[in-house]
């Protein structure tokens, strides 16, 4: 196809897409003013029956938790696949002989990276454990915790990096997170007669230990996400920056 024909096709397709989008957007409710049945009933149901203050997290880990179980397993398999693929390519290079051309890490980056590791870890832990009260939850907190690993790398501590992510342990932790989620799911089946039913005491609305299985599943997801991202990034870092060490 000639360049001219491709441009014509692109312009026509974009115009059609813009038209369809404009029609679709015209029918949406106003920003911050939802009138759908779910927008009105879900927060009330979650606050009254599950004592969960954050409706988004309540939907993710209670009303729609089966979906989250699937997502969690997708991430688990994806991390596993990435690790297997990257590990198979490990023997391709002989030693890290191309290290010399990388510029040294600047002092400012080292200091900022090292100083931020602690606060980022605390923030990640807070976001994981308070998902049922304030915005956040297992996935959000998990990615923040995994970002702390990148700060260790940014600070140039390759030796320290070896210590904070022993690959075998990370793999075991990832499996533990996924298994914990599956066990809580089965717990609902055993104690309440339905998969992922909220079978724990729901406590008082707004307290840290409340909302039944929601914070438990959130922590399980946090562990799984942290380990999965750490695994993928560690394997990539091994491949590219440390040189193909065996």
């Amino acid at each position, binding site marked *: 196809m000639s360049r001219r024909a491709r441009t014509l096709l692109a312009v026509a397709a974009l115009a059609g897409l813009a038209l369809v989008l404009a029609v679709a957007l015209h029918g949406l409710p106003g920003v911050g003013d939802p009138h759908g049945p779910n927008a009105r009933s879900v927060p009330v149901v979650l606050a009254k029956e599950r004592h969960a203050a954050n409706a988004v997290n309540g939907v993710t880990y209670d009303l729609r938790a089966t979906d989250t179980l699937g997502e969690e397993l997708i991430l688990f398999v994806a991390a596993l696949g990435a690790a297997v693929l990257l590990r198979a390519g490990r023997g391709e290079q002989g030693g890290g002989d191309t290290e010399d051309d990388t510029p040294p890490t600047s002092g400012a980056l080292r200091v900022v990276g090292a100083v931020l590791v602690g606060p980022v870890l605390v923030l990640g832990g807070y976001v994981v454990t308070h998902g049922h009260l304030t*915005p956040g939850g297992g996935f*959000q907190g998990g*990615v*923040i915790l995994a*970002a702390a690993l990148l700060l260790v790398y940014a600070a140039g501590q390759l030796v320290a990096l070896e210590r904070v992510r022993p690959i075998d342990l990370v793999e075991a932790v990832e499996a533990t997170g996924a298994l914990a989620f599956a066990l809580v799911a089965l717990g609902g089946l055993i104690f309440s007669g339905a998969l992922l039913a909220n079978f724990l005491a729901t406590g008082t609305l707004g307290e840290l230990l409340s909302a039944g299985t929601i914070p438990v599943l959130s922590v399980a997801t946090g562990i799984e996400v942290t380990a999965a991202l750490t695994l993928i990034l560690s394997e990539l870092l091994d*491949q590219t920056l440390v040189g193909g060490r065996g």
Partner: protein
Amino acid sequence: MTVVQLVALAAVAVGGTVTVLVRDPVRQAMAAGIFGLALAVLFFLFEAPDVALSQIVVASVAVPLMVLLTLAKLRRDDEEPDDE
């Protein structure tokens, strides 16, 4: 809709366009990271803080880093021709 929301929408539009127009993959990864950060601000302003939290880390840190690492790996493979 407030002025701040309009500014955030404009920033996302500009960021997305710049990401497409930049041709060098390394710069594209950086542009995509800034675009992701603009999206995170947009989510926050439109009352979706849960999505914004994951967007900040995933789109502005994790994805650009994975792209950069993959590019570094591909370039290293190119520099070392197979002698078998």
